[in-house]
């Protein structure tokens, strides 16, 4: 649906025309410069890159983005944490398109800094309630049968955690940037568990990293045997050190903290281990003072990435509202967008692959007349879950739960095109 052929004239009917403003749109609508008399110097004066030779093929043996994209970087919120070794940097979602996050822009969360591991010295151990405890080298792992490629989002459970009490940070990089989406190459964790032979009493696994936090999480055996991967590559190349080189656990649809980086050990047991990251952290404190634990699944969520505070609108007339949606429960089936703070909604078009537990890209082509917008998106998944409003979430959970804030985000877009993080009634 709504396919626009490259170069074809923009189809007005496809544009969302704001109520009652159809006529006004045409009047203030941007007319191309065809009628103007001054020739464009960027056309009539040949630029240096057209006349002089450029750099050679191996100018950058490992390619880097254009210098004109230098602002598209991960960013930190330094007041959040006491040290950058136990902190987070955020994905610049506002500047990205499609569904794949470039490796160098994937947000980073460490608890003990970035481990630098010589892959020839890395070992992966399976033990506990198994018939045969085993040790694998990286070479062994890459020779395992059953290698697969899967696209999955990884979202930190604390993504949007700063927004529980109200709009706080201006930019989807900060409000929603603890997420990335890449294609992983690896082998199902099941293959290793079956190689070791899980004893009938085995019900949980403990996954552990080799970094200075020796990060650990308990994972139900059922999930471990279902779709978890032991992965060594992302987007076709070796994992980046900050993403767990040489080996990380992939736990599709579940909170990012469980995707143990620098994975070195899987222990099988008959009950969870009550680790710090599943008790002190990553439990959801509710208004009555009680806390939910084992809230592993990331519910359906979406955000408009452009326009947004870091990506204002530059002109009236045709504009593309763009965003991403995802669900840990399955596949995003629909995304609705509102321009008036939730009074009326229009279904956006999902473009590109809509894969289970992957980020999904949506667009809404609009004709903007400069009127203030209260822009929101609302994701639905194939279980019938509909992304809730922040008010609906707070009604159930209060404002102290930090984690799992998947409420609908609002951007106020002013008539000058600037956008601000707000909340609406």
């Amino acid at each position: 649906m709504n396919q626009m052929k490259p170069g074809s004239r923009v189809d007005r009917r496809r544009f969302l025309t704001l109520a009652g403003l159809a006529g006004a749109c045409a009047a203030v609508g941007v007319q191309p410069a065809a009628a103007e008399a001054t020739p464009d110097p960027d056309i009539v004066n040949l630029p240096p890159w057209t006349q002089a030779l450029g750099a050679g093929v191996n100018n950058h043996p490992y390619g880097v983005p254009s210098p004109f994209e230098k602002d598209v970087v991960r960013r930190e919120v330094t007041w959040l944490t006491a040290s950058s070794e136990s902190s987070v940097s955020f994905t610049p979602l506002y500047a990205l398109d499609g569904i794949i996050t470039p490796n160098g822009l994937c947000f980073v969360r460490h608890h003990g800094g970035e481990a630098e591991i010589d892959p020839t010295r890395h070992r992966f151990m399976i033990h506990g309630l198994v018939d045969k405890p085993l040790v694998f080298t990286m070479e062994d792992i890459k020779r395992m049968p059953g290698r697969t490629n899967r696209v999955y989002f990884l979202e930190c459970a604390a993504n949007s955690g700063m927004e529980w009490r109200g709009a706080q940070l201006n930019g989807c990089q900060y409000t929603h940037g603890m997420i990335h989406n890449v294609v992983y190459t690896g082998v199902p964790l099941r293959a290793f568990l079956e190689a070791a032979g899980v004893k009938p009493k085995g019900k949980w696994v403990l996954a552990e990293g080799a970094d200075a936090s020796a990060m650990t999480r308990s994972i139900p055996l059922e999930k471990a045997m279902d779709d978890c991967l032991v992965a060594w590559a992302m987007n076709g190349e070796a994992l980046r050190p900050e993403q767990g080189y040489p080996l990380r656990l992939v736990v599709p649809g579940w909170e990012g903290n469980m995707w143990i980086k620098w994975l070195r050990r899987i222990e099988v047991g008959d009950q969870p281990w009550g680790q710090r990251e599943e008790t002190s952290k990553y439990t959801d404190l509710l208004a009555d003072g009680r806390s939910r634990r084992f809230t592993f699944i990331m519910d359906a969520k979406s955000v408009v990435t452009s326009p947004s505070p870091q990506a204002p609108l530059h002109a009236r007339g045709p504009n593309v509202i763009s965003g991403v949606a995802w669900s840990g429960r399955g596949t995003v089936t629909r995304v609705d967008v509102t321009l008036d703070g939730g009074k009326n909604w229009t279904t956006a078009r999902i473009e590109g692959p809509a894969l289970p537990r992957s980020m999904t890209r949506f667009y809404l082509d609009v004709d903007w007349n400069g009127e203030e917008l209260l822009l929101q998106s609302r994701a639905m998944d194939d279980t019938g879950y509909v992304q809730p409003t922040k008010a609906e979430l707070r009604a159930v959970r209060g404002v102290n739960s930090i984690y799992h804030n998947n409420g609908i985000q609002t951007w106020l877009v002013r008539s000058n095109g600037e956008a601000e993080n707000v909340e609406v009634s």
Partner: protein
Amino acid sequence: MSRSARSFAVAGAVLLAFTGLASADAVKLGRPALPEEIKAWDIDVRPDGLGLPEGQGSVSQGEELFQNNCAACHGEFGEGVGRWPVLAGGQGTLTSERPEKTIGSFWPDTSTVFDYVHRAMPFGAAQTLQPDEVYAIVAYLLYLNDVVPDDYVLTKENFPTVALPNRPNFYDDDRETTEKAFWKATPCMKDCKPKVEITSHAAVLDVTPDAGKEGDKPAGAVE
């Protein structure tokens, strides 16, 4: 043995295909883990006490170790220096506007204190403490949180008898029942509400990082 991709495409067939293919003997990959190797890495301690090493330590021994190894960040009494984590106090704050989640006010399991301190602290010198030192530090942290008296000696044997007060207040994820309303068949598309008002502005707080400007520092919420 079949390496065909089809064996993965058919969910039901996967398990069978894989059992045949990937038992350690069949794929001849990996080698047996030696008991010494497992012991070197398997330091986890469970809420039922499984995994605790032999050893013991007193509150007073713990106090000295804590002042030397931990207080620079966590404060003399676990109150936290600057933005380093607070380890004690906060009892009765969980329903307040600013809950203070500490070992005494929030953590469900004593074992987590032992496991975590042993595995990850002191920050930057992880896994340098001996079991007796960890017992002593845990005893001191429990004392700071009013869980044990000042003459307490924590041991492998009495460990499972020391319970943390907030234990009963945790329960398993129940979103599929308590949040069932979020599975709406048909969300509203038209005339969904009569009026819309802005209730909150990020610009009012102005804490977004920006070149050359340092905003106010609200309580951090990334944990």
